[in-house]
């Protein structure tokens, strides 16, 4: 159990995907303008991560390892992730069109989101079991959502703040990202 907790915390905070591993930076700036959209994006990525971890774990240990064709994992993982994103996109489009508009191009772009591919690769590399892999995916998704939520919360306030003209918009967001990254350095060494 403590193993699972340390995996979760390790993936969520210490090796945070956005701020420590620099994965998934595209939605980090693209959808972090509004808190609602950011949280939804984080949840969508988390669902894709969970499902992708489950499916790729099964494929890796039941098919790729058996036939010793591990080198095919990139192609197959991308195939799986792409279809999962298709399903998620379909679901969001039919249930909540406002959310679909808010996420915009970043929703289909989860397909090429390196955070999702990254978590499946880390699962394979670390030799996680199925439960561990799912916990790792949950942790990674949680960390992703957390940082996206923090960033969007800050950026919502930045809209009202008195920022020097040349720093308004994206430049000050980069500065905020830098300070966030420094803050997350503090988690190093917890586990």
């Amino acid at each position, binding site marked *: 159990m403590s193993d699972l907790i340390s995996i979760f915390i390790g993936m969520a905070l210490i090796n945070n995907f956005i701020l420590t591993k620099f994965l998934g930076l595209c939605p980090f700036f693209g959808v972090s303008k509004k808190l609602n959209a950011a949280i939804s994006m984080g949840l969508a990525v988390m669902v894709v991560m969970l499902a992708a971890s489950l499916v790729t774990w099964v494929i890796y240990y039941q*098919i790729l390892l058996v*036939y010793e*064709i591990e080198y095919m994992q990139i192609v197959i993982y991308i*195939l799986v992730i792409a279809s999962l994103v298709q*399903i998620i996109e379909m679901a969001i*489009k*039919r*249930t909540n069109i406002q959310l679909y*508009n808010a996420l*915009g191009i970043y929703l289909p772009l989860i397909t090429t989101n390196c955070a999702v591919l990254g978590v499946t690769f880390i699962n394979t590399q670390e030799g996680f079991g199925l439960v561990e892999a799912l916990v790792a995916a949950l942790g990674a998704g949680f960390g992703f959502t957390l940082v996206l939520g923090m960033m969007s919360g800050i950026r919502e306030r930045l809209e009202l703040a008195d920022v020097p003209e040349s720093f308004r918009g994206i430049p000050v967001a980069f500065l905020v990202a830098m300070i966030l990254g420094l803050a997350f350095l503090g988690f190093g060494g917890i586990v």
Partner: protein
Amino acid sequence: MIDGLTLIIIVILTLVGLGCGIAIFIFNRILPEESETLKATAKIAEVLPGANCGACGQPGCFAYAQALAADPESFKDQPCKIALNDDQCVADLENVLGMELDAGTPVKAVVHCVGKSEILFNYKGVGTCKSAAQLSGGYKKCAFGCIGLGDCLRACPYDAYTIDEERNVAIVDWDKCVGCGLCVPECPHGLIELVPNDTAQFLGCSYTTLLPIPGRERCEQACIKCRKCVRADEEGRVTWNDERILPNIPSVAVPESVTECPPQVIIKTGK
């Protein structure tokens, strides 16, 4: 020819792909039906050109379709000029929207410069017209003409522009131009104008000052303000614009003026 391992890989890839496809199909059935507005939007999006050029003001064709589905009347404020150029597309859109579209006259872009101005100095800055224009109006002798660094070319989603290497001037291919107008604000010298697509000739010069007289000192093919085009046209269709110190060339054909122009700066369209 294919060894066992390759065959296994092919089979596995096919099976995984098939599995993914079946999963998508199943979810397609399970998930609730698309709402009526979304269905209408999808229908509109289908007949739109799908170029995602953004000339209508919406971020893409799907967003445009959503706006049209919510309010078909918004076509009047934000017409899709690409669709208007295509009769089939207009018919389809009218069918889907259930209203008559005022097609208007399709327009095309022209560049009011023939680019015969010589190069004044060697410009080695950022390779855009906008930055070159900030340095004494460009690197050519004529500070009004086409700079030729292709800001319009980069703005055009339809590849209608080419840069003539010899003269360093932007040329519009009317077969490709759809009149979306995305290039108009890009030109720092304001040389690009949208004209009706039946325009017969246009003025290939924007030399809007008298000094130094004649304009030829700056460009061998510049308007020399002789007003011969105005005199040649007996029906008074060509007029003189005192403010710009250039003739107003109408869209109807005035062959006399074209042939009479000494620097031959009135150009027939499509040339």
